[in-house]
């Protein structure tokens, strides 16, 4: 559907009585000296005969002349609503309500690990993830004690190895046996050191996403198999709480006219 074209009249200021804003300026789109980009002023719109906005009415008029008009609504198009996009770059999801969008965002884009940019479904799992993947102390302790916490909230059991935990999850908590538990912990890069790219190989999952609560991660991972170190993207960790965490990679070396968008792609993570 095309948008109405606006035809500001040359002498509109005489007709509108709106002395504050000169409507003709709006069409020029110039930035005033102080850099203020705002220039809204009420616009009176004239529509010429062939305008798109008049199409439906014209058609109905002619259907009427041809004795085909009906005021029944059955032929009418259903009302459509404006959509809300997910603002995460690379995520092209669209939603017809704000509620749906927020649910999507909370489910897939919140709780992002600031070290490896992975997205976890909940704050708790994020904590576990950080602890197990990015905490060197954990690795040390895990050699001597049971450190791998059961992922199901309230269970509280700990295990010496990831495999034991996985077995526990399948046996006790009835996770599906064909759940993809492949984790390549050994291929994880060095931990620690903020700003270091974690070069973790992520096996791209098939489309059958496991819907088990909490275990399935959707990865929002910028690096995977691309050597992005060359771009020297320093991921700044924000002090702000995670929900405000809209990563804005700032480049020291390059001067960009625009802030770089965080690169995200959706891949299924293995646990």
């Amino acid at each position, binding site marked *: *559907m095309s*948008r*109405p074209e606006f035809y500001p*009249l040359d002498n*509109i200021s005489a*007709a*509108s*009585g*709106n002395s504050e804003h000169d409507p003709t300026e709006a069409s020029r*789109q110039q930035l005033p000296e102080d*850099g*203020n*980009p*705002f220039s*809204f*002023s*009420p*616009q*009176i*719109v004239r*529509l010429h*005969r*062939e305008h798109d*906005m*008049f*199409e*439906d*009415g014209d*058609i*109905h*008029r*002619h*259907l009427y*002349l*041809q*004795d*085909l*008009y*009906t*005021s029944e*609504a059955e*032929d*009418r198009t*259903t*009302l*459509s*609503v*404006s*959509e809300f*996009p997910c*603002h995460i*770059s690379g995520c092209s999801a*669209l939603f017809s309500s*704000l509620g749906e*969008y927020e649910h999507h965002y909370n489910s897939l884009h919140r709780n992002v690990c600031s070290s490896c940019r992975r997205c976890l479904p909940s704050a708790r799992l994020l904590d576990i993830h950080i602890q197990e993947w990015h905490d060197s102390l954990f690795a040390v302790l895990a050699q001597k004690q049971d450190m791998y916490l059961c992922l199901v909230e309230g269970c509280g059991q700990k295990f010496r190895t990831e495999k034991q935990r996985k077995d526990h999850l399948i046996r006790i908590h009835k996770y599906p046996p064909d759940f993809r538990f492949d984790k390549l912990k050994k291929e994880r890069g060095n931990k620690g050191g903020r700003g270091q790219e974690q070069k973790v190989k992520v096996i791209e999952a098939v489309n059958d996403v496991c819907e088990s609560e909490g275990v399935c991660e959707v990865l929002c991972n910028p690096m995977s198999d691309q050597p992005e170190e060359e771009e020297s993207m320093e991921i700044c960790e924000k002090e702000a709480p995670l*929900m*405000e965490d*809209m990563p804005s990679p700032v480049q020291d070396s390059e001067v960009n006219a625009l*802030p770089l*968008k965080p690169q995200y792609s959706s891949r299924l993570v293995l646990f």
Partner: protein
Amino acid sequence: MWRLNKIHHKSRWHQHNIDELRLRRREQERALRQARRDRQLVSKRLLLYEEEEQTGVTMETASGEQDVVSLLLKLQRGGTEKEIHLKALSKVLRESSAQLSFIKQENSMHLLVGLLTGSDAQCRLLAVRCLHELSYSPNTSVASACMAATPYLLTFLSGPTTKFTETCLYTLGNLCPVSEAVKEKLLAQGIIPALASCMENQRHNLAVVEAIGFTLSQLLQATGAIQKIISMVMCSSLPTYLVSFLTPDSEFGLGAAIECAWCLHYLVCSSEDHQELLARGALLHCSAELVSLSGAVTQGHKEDGMELLVCPLLRIVGNLLPSCLVEDLDKNTVFTLLVDALCVFLQAYLSSSPSLARETAWVLNNLTAHSTECCSAVVTLNLVSPLIQLLPVSHGINTMVLRILANIVSKKKELCVQLVQLGLLSALCSTLKMADQEMVTLSLDVLYMLLLTSPQVKEEFLREGGASILEIIQYNDEGEIRRKASYLVDQLLLTQQQHTV
């Protein structure tokens, strides 16, 4: 003759099955849309016989060609049975093959014209009936053949008879769009003065008024020589009459009003100088009529087919507003009533006819952009909340509604606090997140204006999580949007820092 007391499906299409009718309508709609794209949007009207009118059943047409020839022979012989033969001929001529055969016969049109202008009144009526069938033909050569009769048809327009005049009018109306040459000839033959005098003589008969309106609308829809046609029409008494027939009649119905409204719409949107029409009260009458129709909607008396009248009235008002002085708007209370009427239409047509709702919103934008009084009226008539609730609706409706709200914010700054209380700021927090870039831009514009009004608005916005919304918008694809968001972020941050100091 053809009436529109109630719109119903004409069984002329030989389709008693409702699904077939729907299919036919959809096909025709597609064809019409393409025709509009090609600037070839024309329609003709066919009058039904009285018996068809009454029984609702279309008569069956006899097979064509042979009958034409034999009927013509019989008619040439003359005699007392002319009427019977003419009636038979008019029925036969509904078939395209018969029509082609007719025009191929030597002197056929000459014969018909003779009967048209003869002394037998019933024969005249039947002869014009034949011409009418021919005029309805989509075949240019068939329709053009009728040109031999048009000088007479035009003369008859100033006569007193109504049935006959109606048929003449619809015949002429069908001929207008046939070709440029035909139209030029009709203009030269004085069709416009003839229509004007017909209107003067027969204005008490709404069926004739409807027919005049139809014929005039056919002329005004022409693209070629439109300025010439318009100036001829404006010189006549027609515009005054058109303006006076905009109210539906309780008995006759909407038909005449619809035609007159469409004529006015074509007059308005094809020209830039509207002073004449304004002087004849076009804007006032149309606005008053819209107010009256909205009253019917509110009371639940929405007539079938009312959209066919509301649509051209809206367009007339929308396009006349730019030419009207704001002082004239403000001193007449009908326009504040119109504000209410437009909101009634918005609600009423939102789901059944979104494009009409969009046109309604357009008119309201023009009203509020033009008149500060109308901006106030939106608030005092408690129309802000209903408007805010329309902000999720696309089809171009929400952008127009947001413009309306922006107009009010811009022109009535003192009402901004009230608007915020009514939920405008919360609504913006949603619209700022929409995919529609125009909505985002307008939302930023409105937000900016609201933020300028008071620090409380700023605080309220921050409380609703506005800062993070703006930060996200700074990554928008469009540069203008990013600039605006950044500007607001800087403004807000500045204030925040000032608070902490």
